[in-house]
């Protein structure tokens, strides 16, 4: 890339060939006003706020779309430009309803800010008083078309980042409006995921999230805290806006991040709403069918007494959430494993993670990182969905898949026991009848791809013969197997999305990685596998509290200590094993949770917004959970509670070890060094 130099408003600005004028200006701290432009989205040059003058060129040019050229002399703030921009603003204001005092976004609106900054004190054009619809059909998202400036940011974010392309533009000129699907109302949309991204990028009061309206303008909030969403394995970064001690809104980070800075519907809504849930604020002790309040001292005494007795009888167990931070997990390990020498400690959904670890183990031993950052799906030309349901498990990954297919032209292959969750955009949908057939298919494909690549050519014969065999074993037609092979062989960089349900079976995990290796699915950070594990810190759980062998439900225990973040319902198997135990201590932030009914002692726990620490995300990054609001009342941090408890138990735990997850799947060798393994190695 060639370096170029521009003169912008007399300042010498360096840039790179291919940059737009706006990009050069921004990277050199020269301000040019923009409205329709949003970093990370395709520029469309529609609002004309960013116009600049270029020497020897009579036309005004939009900086956001005009390529910068070496030696350009650019002016951004001449009288002519300011007049022109003001004129554009006046036209916008005259076109629709921008009577700000009746708008929920007043004071939090880029259009209003722009008008003020340009000294727009009157509108010289007749108002159109056009009457558009205020679409209130959606439960959470409101679209008042009367305030739309047609900047198309919402359409672009929905198409380019969320990938549902729910929104588009209908009609022309003054009659043009944003439209949903086939001319439906948003509440009737069949494609909208309620992620709220459109509202986050809307610069005006057109698309708003009802719950956040009037709860505090962004700039009036007391603080904005960056943290991480604990709700799935992607661990999206979030911004939480705090006003007078409550969470006013939660947003994704900027769209220009490599992962799109997205937030799915879970993060957008579950997080702020959880701040409104009723809290367990003081320790509680069960008395018959109800609870009575207790002091921390009394409650912990009782817990310690029961714990000790059960521990001596080797009948105690500990179950903690995989939504805990590395630091919290470290505390549990140092007290229960190292301090008390307990073996019965585990996480919810432990079987899924055990299968996961076992299946990946042979590849980890080879020193390669057996998976890649989730957003690398966007770099792939063939996405293979292995029994995943991303819209449920990790919706942002569903976005990557849709964008990969619709915008980057990747092919999409579904190999699973149920039809593709991406019905409309799936190229090959291979549905096997049983899990056994499914793994045989994956195994068979891996073998064939390997053989084909080894012979380096003429697919005809080998494929014909073996494809029939594989088809037979998998209960599919030969044609189907050949189709899948075609997609895999055509692909330069396939990526495999592994559904959480498959992780239970280590052989299927290993077979999938084998297939990825055979196909040459190598990314710079690891093998092209994106496993959808349970939660935000599943990877951190793996080498801290995860048990080597399952013990839950094998024996009726006298005592169980359970720690839940209360954000997810926790799995059925764990719940039923807990309910079979004699004395149960539940530490949980919220009243409304299935665990609460099972407890003999309830201890308050800090909620996600009151805790801090780190998560090991499948993006491969260690991300920080930060305290958004400090805990109130009797809610105490985990460290101080466990410290008191250990005193009562008479153990002095070591200081927790350095959080270990980062090096668990460290990459020592390039992924291309990975070798396929025999499935016997991982089968029980």
């Amino acid at each position, binding site marked *: 890339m060639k370096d170029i130099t521009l003169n912008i408003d007399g300042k010498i600005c360096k840039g790179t060939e291919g940059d737009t004028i706006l990009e050069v200006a921004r990277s050199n701290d020269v301000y040019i006003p923009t409205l329709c432009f949003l970093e990370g989205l395709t520029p469309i040059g529609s609002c004309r706020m960013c116009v600049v003058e270029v020497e020897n060129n009579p036309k005004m040019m939009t900086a956001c779309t005009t390529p910068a050229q070496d030696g350009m002399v650019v002016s951004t703030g001449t009288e002519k430009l300011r007049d022109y921009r003001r004129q554009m603003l006046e036209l916008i204001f005259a076109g629709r309803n921008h009577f700000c005092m009746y708008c929920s976004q007043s004071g939090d609106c880029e259009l209003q800010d722009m008008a003020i900054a340009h000294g727009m004190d009157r509108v010289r054009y007749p108002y159109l008083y056009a009457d558009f619809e205020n679409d209130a059909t959606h439960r959470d998202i409101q679209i008042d078309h009367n305030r739309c400036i047609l900047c198309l940011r919402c359409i672009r974010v929905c198409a380019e980042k969320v990938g549902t392309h729910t929104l*588009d533009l*209908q009609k022309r000129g003054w009659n043009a409006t944003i439209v949903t699907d086939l*001319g439906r109302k948003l509440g009737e949309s069949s*494609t909208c995921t309620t992620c709220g991204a459109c509202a986050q990028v809307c610069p005006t009061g057109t698309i708003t999230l009802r719950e956040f309206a009037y709860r505090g303008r962004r700039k009036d909030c007391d603080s904005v805290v960056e943290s991480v969403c604990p709700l799935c394995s992607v661990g999206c970064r979030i911004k939480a806006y705090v006003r007078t001690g409550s969470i006013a809104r939660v947003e994704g980070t900027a769209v220009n991040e490599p992962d799109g800075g997205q937030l799915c519907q879970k993060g957008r809504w579950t997080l702020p709403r959880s701040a409104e849930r009723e809290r367990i604020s003081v320790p509680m002790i069960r008395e018959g069918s109800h609870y009575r309040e207790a002091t921390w001292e009394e409650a912990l005494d009782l817990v310690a007494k029961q714990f000790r007795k059960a521990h001596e009888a080797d009948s105690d167990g500990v179950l903690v959430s995989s939504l805990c931070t590395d630091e919290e997990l470290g505390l549990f390990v140092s007290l229960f494993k190292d301090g008390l020498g307990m073996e019965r400690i585990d996480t919810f959904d432990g079987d899924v993670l055990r299968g996961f670890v076992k299946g990946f183990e042979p590849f980890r031993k080879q020193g390669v990182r057996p998976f890649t950052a989730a957003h690398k799906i966007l770099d792939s030309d063939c996405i293979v969905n292995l029994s995943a349901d991303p819209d449920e498990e990790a919706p942002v990954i569903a976005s990557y898949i849709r964008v990969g297919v*619709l915008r980057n032209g990747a092919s999409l292959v579904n190999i699973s026991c149920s039809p593709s969750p991406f019905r409309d955009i799936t190229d090959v949908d291979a549905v096997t009848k049983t899990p056994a057939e499914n793994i045989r298919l994956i195994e068979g494909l891996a073998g064939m791809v390997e053989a084909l690549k080894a012979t380096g050519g003429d697919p005809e014969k080998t494929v014909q013969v073996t494809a029939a065999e594989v088809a037979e074993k998998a209960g599919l037609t030969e044609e189907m197997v050949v189709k899948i092979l075609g997609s895999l062989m055509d692909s330069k960089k396939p990526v495999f999305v592994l559904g959480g349900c498959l992780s239970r079976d280590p052989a299927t995990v290993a077979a999938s990685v084998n297939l990825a290796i055979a196909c040459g699915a190598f990314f710079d950070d690891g093998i092209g596998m994106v496993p959808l594990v349970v939660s935000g810190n599943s990877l951190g759980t793996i080498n801290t509290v995860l048990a080597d062998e399952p013990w839950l439900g094998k024996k009726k225990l006298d005592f169980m200590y359970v720690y839940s973040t209360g954000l997810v319902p926790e799995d059925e198997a764990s719940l039923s094993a807990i309910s079979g135990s004699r004395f149960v201590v539940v530490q949980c932030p919220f009243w409304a949770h299935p665990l609460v009914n099972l407890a003999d002692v309830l201890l308050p726990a800090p909620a996600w917004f009151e805790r801090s620490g780190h998560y090991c995300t499948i993006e491969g990054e260690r991300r920080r959970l930060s305290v958004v609001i400090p805990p109130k009342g009797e809610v105490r941090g985990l460290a101080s509670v466990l410290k008191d408890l250990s005193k009562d138990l008479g153990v002095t735990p070591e200081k927790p070890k350095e959080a270990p997850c980062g090096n668990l799947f460290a990459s020592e060798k390039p992924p291309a060094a990975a070798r396929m393994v025999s499935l016997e190695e991982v089968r029980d």
Partner: protein
Amino acid sequence: MTIQASEVEEKIREIVKPWKGKQGSLIPILQAIQHDFGYLQEDAIEILSREIGIPTAEIYGVGTFYAQFHLKPRGRHIIRICRGTACHVRGSLKILEKVMDILKISENETTEDLRFTLEPVACLGACGLAPVVMVNDVTYGRLTPDSIQPILENYK
């Protein structure tokens, strides 16, 4: 119903076939669909979206941008009433009102029996004959509110 749906599906597949994998094919495809179905019906757009991998919202956007496309069924006969200046001066509004009254529909609507669609248009380029009405390809001039009814009766 199911039989009908698969018929639509088959037809769309046929229309799309020559265009598969080509850029800029949406408009000719929509023209072909409109030619075969009379208008861009919803299920046709949904099937098309699946076939060519373009989201329904985008197709809808294109369909509403160009005046040549129709998203509602159209009548067998199209009545175009000129609302240009010359015709206006010579009483085209009266004719429009009369037609609306006879057919019980308003502008840009279609009668329930799909017999007529009524479209006001700007100058038809026959100002000398004002006020002017076109039914399908035939132009009628020097009209009065009374002379319009017998004309419409010619179209079944």
